[in-house]
């Protein structure tokens, strides 16, 4: 079945057409037929890019003012006799939508019904920048393809298996009840795929293993996946918590925030932007949010780039050991995301010194893996360390198949605290 996967942001729509079904999934033979996006929605020079394997990249510009026309444009190009890959929209059997926040309402990917739409809208208060454009993408796609099933896949769902002692914060309990303040975690679709694929490569059953999945991209997070269940993850109520990221602070003493607001007389907006866009690698180094540029500056002797790099790796290393402790041990560590897949320096500095807990890095192997799957631990390492490129779109397409076949797992919380 051909599945359209949509990731709708406020001014962009990313899409893929993926051919998959139960057989292909099991054989890891899902086919990505086309990858593309519409950028700068709302402007007069919106751009559509379409990449089809073995073809020249197709590009076009026009004025696209909202998501509905953007998706109509995508469907028109996909069915174009010259540039397209399908004959008619009717060939698309289903649509999978990425939805950032499912709150406590969604512990699984689900078929979108009017009730589901209402609940996603209710979660918008928790992700005001993400859920509304995700929904706009759904409305637009549903208008163009009203007769096929639409499935929502949430970034948060996989982490709903966390126990209360991992997801609650040490603040007055009524804030959890009143404002739903708790750890939700993000990148769930990625952590799910990477732990699944990593075990597939190793020939392991995920249900029998203790795994740490590390996603290092624009946002960075890791998850402790114990017997196929996420029991802890580093992002929290928002994607700001946890690791040092490109422009986000990650963990810090919460007392700093009111203190800086008073001393610098910052508004709520300014302090939020400070933590989300002016911090992390960029804020510390003063150079860049891009790890490649940090590494370059560090190689040239830049002191602040060096300390930013060290902070990034040090915090990650602490979390790896902490999550091993959380699971009373660890069998494998998987790196993914742009930095995780392509930066041997970061991987090395994050796990060096962890030999005491059975992690032994093979430096040569590590240097060699910069594109694609590969093992980077020594043959003697008790803990296997792998690079596993993530594929969130493929997971969304597979979830569509799972939901339609009634085999979608539910990431049921182990307990509810009232």
């Amino acid at each position, binding site marked *: 079945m051909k599945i359209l996967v949509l990731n709708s942001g406020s*001014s962009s729509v990313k899409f893929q057409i993926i051919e998959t079904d139960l057989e292909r999934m099991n054989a890891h033979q899902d086919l990505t037929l086309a990858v593309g996006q519409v950028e700068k929605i*709302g*402007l*007069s020079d919106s751009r559509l890019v379409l990449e089809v394997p073995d073809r020249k990249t197709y590009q076009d510009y026009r004025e696209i*003012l909202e998501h509905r026309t953007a998706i109509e444009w995508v469907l028109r190009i996909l069915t174009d006799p010259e540039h397209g890959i399908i004959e008619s929209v009717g060939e698309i059997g289903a649509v999978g939508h990425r939805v950032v926040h499912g709150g406590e309402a969604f512990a699984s990917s689900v078929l979108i019904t009017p009730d589901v739409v209402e609940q996603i809208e209710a979660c918008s208060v928790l992700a005001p920048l993400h859920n509304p454009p995700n929904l706009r993408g759904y409305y637009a796609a549903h208008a163009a393809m009203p007769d096929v099933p639409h499935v929502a896949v949430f970034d948060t769902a996989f982490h709903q298996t966390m126990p209360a002692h991992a997801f609650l914060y040490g603040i007055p309990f009524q804030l959890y009840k009143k404002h739903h303040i708790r750890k939700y975690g993000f990148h769930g679709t990625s952590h799910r795929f990477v732990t699944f694929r990593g075990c597939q490569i190793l020939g392991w059953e995920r249900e029998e293993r203790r795994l740490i999945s590390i996603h290092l991209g624009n946002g960075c997070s890791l998850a402790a996946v114990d017997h196929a269940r996420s029991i802890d993850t580093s992002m929290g109520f928002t994607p700001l918590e946890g690791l040092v990221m490109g*422009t986000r602070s990650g963990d810090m003493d919460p007392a700093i925030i009111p*203190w800086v607001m*008073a*001393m*610098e*007389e*910052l*508004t709520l*907006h*300014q*302090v939020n*932007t*400070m933590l989300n*866009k*002016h911090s992390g690698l960029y804020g510390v180094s003063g150079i860049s949010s891009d790890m490649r540029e940090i590494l370059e500056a560090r190689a040239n002797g830049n002191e602040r780039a060096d300390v930013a790099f060290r902070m990034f790796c040090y915090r990650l290393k602490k979390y790896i050991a902490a999550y091993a402790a959380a699971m009373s041990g660890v069998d494998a560590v998987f790196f993914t995301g742009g930095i995780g897949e392509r930066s041997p320096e970061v991987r090395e500095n994050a796990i060096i010194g962890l030999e005491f807990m059975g992690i032994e890095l093979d430096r040569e192997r590590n240097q060699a893996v910069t594109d694609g799957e590969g093992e980077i631990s020594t043959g003697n390492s008790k803990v296997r360390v792998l690079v596993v490129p993530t594929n969130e779109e493929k997971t969304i397409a597979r979830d569509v198949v799972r939901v339609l076949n009634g085999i979608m797992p539910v990431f049921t919380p182990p307990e509810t605290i009232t």
Partner: protein
Amino acid sequence: MSWELHRVVIVGGGMMGRSLATRVAQEGINVYLKEVSTEAVEVAKAELDRSLEHEIARFGLTNAEKKAILSRITWVTHYDCATDCDLALEAVQEDFGLKRQILRELDRRMPAENPIVITTSTLSITELATQNTHPERFVGMHFLYPVTTTRVVEVVRGQLTTDEVYERAIDFARLLGKVPIKVFEMPGFVTTRTILPLINEAIHIVMEGVAEAAEVDLALKMGFNFNSGPLEWADRTGLDRVLNWMQHLYHESGEPRHRPCPLLKRLVRAGLLGAKTGRGFFEYDENRHRTDRLPDDKPRMA
């Protein structure tokens, strides 16, 4: 929003015009910003750059966002752009003759159903509207300083403003991220009409020697949880502007309580206009930071 807003023309590249152009551009809408001459454009451009850099230094904006904002602002020195704009807004000083002339230029060029917004705190929307071919499409908006951070805007209905135009102005206010306060035209509306007598009273207190200006401000700031005291607020707004508004209000209402305090007139005559001249009730450096704060005038840390 039930109508489409793709292009906006703002007349006047002063603080207000620049701030509003920035907000509109941040929403991904293209803005024409009109100034009188290429020289004036250059000055305003430099000022805009300075304020965006300041906001970056305050963490409120990133370099990439600044670039995106500037790419959506087109500076012009003529009104021809108004023909394809969905909304026009004039943001020039509080001068009836000048505003009337600008509104006529806009009214002549814009499609008849598109709203024209007048920014004013004291002038009559109706009086400014009636001179034109389509007086029903004029609506007022009163932005408070600082325009970028103040959360409310008064949306002013004139005698002839249609419901549709008024609703569009409300939508526009929400697009700018402001809470609209619905008011009918009357000098000072709600905010200016209440703050001016407060400022005037504070000046009287200083003139009578009841308390020092700094202590008057501190009492009100800390006593009522204001961001700044009324005298510093007046300094930052510009004492000439405050006096101008006060005179309008007095002129319209004829109420003795609206008569400007003589001390305010004295400062304006002496050219002590507030933050922009370095001195008004208080003293300011070139970055408009106050240099004479009382030791007690500091943020509370606990």
